[in-house]
């Protein structure tokens, strides 16, 4: 029943990166130009040192030396200033691009079809939100600028080396084959290796977290030995993953070192030979050797940052993938006539070929209250979701005023039917923010009225900053019943004519349930209600009770009718009253 969110392919990633670049041409090319200029200024030192060596060899004065060194100092200052602005501009660009990326991602997430969020669960999405955004942030902030600078420096340095003499190209090119072979070998394996490695640390963490949070259970059930073994197993798996990547590096690092060493040694040898043939000067040999040595650092950075960039690209692909989820509703533009909700021969499956609803018919009268009861797994919640327009039925239809729920635009749908589940998420933010999200632009008076309707105004006003009190994770803790009241107050603001309550008050302390029921009663006032009942008492109050068993409505009628009929509802009612 779990599906996975898509991942963007290479082409989509490239075209997105291209569009980002096109959005900021001035910053991008400005930063690149500054980096090139800074790298050029940095090339003066070897050239001037070569001149010095040459001058010393052929005899010179201290004045000449002082002039050359002064020139060296001037170039250093120029390089410093250029570096400052080049770095600044590229970091500003990086922050800008990153902000756009994550904002696009969150907007795409918010636009995800309801069914996809339900099916994929929040795990995958949460990983993308936290880990992939972090990974990408790291890549864009650190890896990408470093890499760009390294590439610019390497190219400029290589060109400078060539300017000393064409012959410098030969030792440099001889270093390329081992470099390319080693790099290809490594990159082909590195990404998977490092992903596996980081997954093993998540696993160690998960096991440790479970052990710590379940410490009571561990003690009560004598699971200590098992937990220790579980962590040790995770460590063993992590060690295997670490050994694999270490093996990759053990092959790759020395290979690179030798690829760097070859050009240096060969430049010296070859240059020395040319000098003995009087084809080049001593200064040129010195300069060439120093340039070739200077190449090592940027090339090494290009190589070592590549796997980091690979991971960044993979994260980007996952973030962009969210935008590729197709919409599951097709707005027809038809307007519902009235508020009559009806399900007609509804069948539905999460997994192809395994229907969980087998032809359900249900006509809900305007203002009617229907309780749905039945054993776990019978399809109550699924039916509830279909009635709220979360999923489109496989066959049959769910309509409001003769228009299919999935034909309505989301915002309109919520004006008709709202689904309330046992999840009562309190968002990070003020109490006010938590409420007005249901109807942006609500006045404080509206908010207070909604809170008063659910009997929550007293405790909210007693908070240190009233409506402005920060709640949610990291803010002031609210109790489960209070969270439930906030959820109910949102409903009052949203004001739909039909409500589907999926075990909305379960998981709540029985003592609080009573109080909440009063709040709930205020919300339900004047609305059509379909309540998926967890406890029988709400069924007793309903106009009609629908017993759902094995994906069908097996009994439908008022409480008294069903009790009199003597079916499964009656049996349960009896046992509830100790007659069983």
């Amino acid at each position: 029943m779990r599906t996975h969110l898509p991942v963007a392919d290479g082409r989509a990633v490239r075209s997105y990166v291209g569009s980002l670049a096109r959005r900021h041409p001035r910053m991008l090319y400005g930063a690149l130009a500054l980096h090139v200029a800074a790298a050029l200024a940095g090339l003066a030192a070897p050239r001037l040192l070569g001149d010095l060596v040459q001058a010393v060899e052929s005899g010179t004065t201290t004045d000449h030396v002082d002039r050359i060194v002064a020139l060296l100092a001037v170039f250093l200052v120029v390089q410093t200033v250029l570096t400052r602005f080049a770095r600044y501009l590229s970091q500003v660009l990086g922050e800008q691009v990153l902000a756009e990326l994550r904002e696009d991602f969150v907007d795409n997430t918010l636009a995800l079809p309801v069914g996809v969020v339900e099916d994929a669960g929040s795990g995958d999405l949460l990983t993308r939100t936290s880990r992939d955004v972090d990974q990408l942030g790291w890549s864009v902030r650190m890896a990408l600028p470093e890499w760009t600078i390294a590439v610019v420096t390497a190219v400029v340095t290589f060109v400078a080396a060539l300017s000393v003499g064409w012959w410098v190209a030969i030792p440099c090119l001889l270093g390329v084959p081992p470099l390319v072979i080693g790099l290809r070998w490594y990159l082909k394996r590195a990404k998977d290796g490092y992903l596996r490695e980081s997954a093993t640390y998540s696993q160690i963490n998960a096991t440790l977290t479970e052990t710590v949070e379940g410490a009571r259970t561990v003690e009560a059930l004598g699971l200590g030995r098992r937990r220790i073994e579980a962590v040790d197993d995770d460590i063993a798996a992590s060690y295997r993953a670490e050994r694999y990547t270490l093996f990759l590096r053990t092959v790759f690092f020395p290979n690179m070192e030798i690829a760097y060493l070859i050009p240096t040694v060969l430049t010296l040898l070859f240059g020395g030979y040319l000098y003995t043939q009087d084809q080049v000067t001593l200064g040129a040999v010195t300069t060439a050797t120093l340039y070739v040595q200077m190449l090592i650092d940027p090339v090494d950075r290009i190589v070592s940052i590549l796997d980091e960039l690979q991971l960044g690209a993979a994260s980007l692909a996952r973030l962009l993938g969210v935008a590729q989820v197709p919409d599951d509703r097709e707005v027809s533009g038809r307007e519902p006539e009235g508020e009559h909700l009806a399900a007609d021969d509804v069948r539905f499956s999460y997994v192809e070929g395994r229907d969980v609803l087998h032809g359900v018919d249900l006509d809900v009268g305007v203002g009617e209250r229907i309780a749905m009861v039945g054993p776990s797994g019978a399809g109550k919640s699924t039916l509830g979701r279909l009635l709220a327009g979360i999923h489109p039925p496989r066959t049959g239809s769910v309509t409001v005023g003769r228009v299919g729920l999935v034909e309505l635009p989301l915002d309109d749908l919520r004006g008709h039917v709202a689904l309330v589940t046992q999840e009562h998420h309190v968002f990070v933010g003020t109490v006010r923010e938590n409420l007005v999200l249901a109807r942006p632009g609500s006045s404080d008076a509206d908010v207070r009225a909604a809170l008063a309707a659910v009997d929550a105004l007293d405790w909210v006003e007693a908070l240190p900053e009233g409506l402005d009190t920060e709640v949610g994770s990291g803010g002031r803790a609210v109790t489960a019943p209070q969270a439930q009241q906030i959820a109910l107050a949102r409903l009052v603001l949203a004001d739909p004519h039909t409500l589907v309550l999926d075990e909305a008050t379960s998981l709540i302390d029985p003592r609080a349930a009573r109080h909440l029921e009063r709040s709930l009663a205020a919300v339900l006032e004047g609305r059509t209600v379909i309540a998926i009942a967890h406890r029988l008492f709400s069924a007793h109050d309903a106009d009609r009770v629908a017993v759902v068993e094995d994906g069908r409505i097996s009994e439908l009628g008022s409480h008294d009718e069903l009790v009199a009929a003597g079916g499964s509802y009656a049996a349960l009612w009896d046992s509830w009253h100790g007659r069983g």
Partner: protein
Amino acid sequence: MRKLPLDHPGTAAHGSPGGFLWWVARKQWHTLAIGMLFGIVWMSAQAVMPAVIGRAIDEGVAAKDTSRLAEWAAVLFCIGLVQAGAGIMRHRFAVTNWLTAAYRVVQLVTRQSVRLGGTLPRRVSTGEVVAIGTNDLSHIGQVMDVAARFAGAVVSFVVVAVILLQTSVTLGLVVLIGVPLLMLGVAPLLSPLQRRSAHQRHLMGRLSNTASDIVGGLRVLRGIGGEQVFSARYRRESQTTRAAGVRVAQFQSVLDALQVFLPGLFVVVVVWLGARYAVQGTITPGELVAFYGYSAFLMIPLRTATEYANKVIRGRVAAARICRVLALEPEVTVPAHPAPSPAVGSDLVDTRTGLVVHTGRLTAIVSEQPDDSAVLADRLGMAASPVDDDVRFGGTPLTALDPAEVRKRIVVSDTGAMLFSGRLGDGLDLTGHGDVRRALRTASAGDILEALAEGLDTIVAERGRSFSGGQRQRLVLARALAIDPEILVLVEPTSAVDAHTEARIAARLRDHRTGRTTVVTSSSPLMLAAADVVAFLVGGRVVATGTHADLLDTSPAYRRVVARESDPDLETETGELQKSGGSR
């Protein structure tokens, strides 16, 4: 490489953070020592590189001696090979040192968590302990990792200084004094940069929380709307974070530029002095090139030294947190001379509340305050804090017995019990010989198993998240039943399941535990009706015992408590109920 994980992480010195780091280092001193050795060889090879190039230029190139040039090129190549070889060995030992230390920390913390049991969450926030697994282990690992490079840095710095001093005392002193001074030159920038970075990290963390919050509440948003509000808020925070990033960039870019300028300045000074000596004929052109090389190289050991100082500071912070957790002591202690274990079939009596749990019966506890029954259930299994002597098993206080023996004979399974990740079958069958199928049937959990393609081989997600609350509760119940202990205490075992299922569980539980002792806390009539005897607690004392029907008949207070669970209208129907209850 060594064998990891270690069989025994050892007993840590947790007196002080420094002491802990030292203890960890001592425990792996041999790999640390070998790592340092390779670190020294590796960095020294880099340090002598400029000297070799200088000699090659002097004796080979400038002298136009091709055979000397070939010799020096060969030496250069060999030193390069030594550097590559020592480099990778140093890296391998650094990784080993990191892993040994990090894994040891995880093992220590796990073992300590297990030893503390229920005491742990009462003494320290679980987030604090979990942070050890996410961050601290890596900080401890890094202290050990960088140690080898630090040793290399110190030695290579000395090597270069000696070479320079031999050539020229002035140059040597410039290096020895100038380089550390340069490092200090950056210091004034560091603290504002760190402040701004910390602020940026803080905002990034908040932004990430906002995004997680949106994702976590997405289903709620989908039910009720509000996407625009959240999109706008995220955008706002994202822009604040971006602005903070730009402020970091203002300092960071200056620091980056100084990383170019300060070493460059040093190079200029060294080259200037060297060139003047060269003009005077004190040094050769090759030596001048070597000086240039040294001045560039010396930045590496210095950076390593700063890095090491940083790691040690962070390592101490991490070590302090680890020490706090390791220093905790469990509340339940093993008596020096445990009393002999009571005979099988002994009654469990709590003198404080007056509760008597008769052997072989299904006893239900109902309390006016639900918390009271939960505490009592915990006390029956020595799982409450503080531990007390009032619960007696066959007349002996639980505290006088060996805790392991108590846990074997009395098992408490509470509502919040964790379902651990791993293979479902293993998670349910803790003894290795439990009748899992029968337990699952009793817990009415057969449908959960049927829905799983892999059945008992299904891998349970972390904390059993892949199951709904009701499913988790039934699986936890099945797990407790499969242990089949002499006395089983169940706290609210059916609070999250629907009435149909609860009715089935209540009916089967009695049969399942026939001949064994079971205690259930619950206020659900379905469960209470299935109990042999119900104990009613008011103000922490048992005020009435009897069957559910008896108590409904005789105790108006009991009726009120049980009716809370039920329809408000029920209170008016109790008269009729009494009759029906009484006629049973």
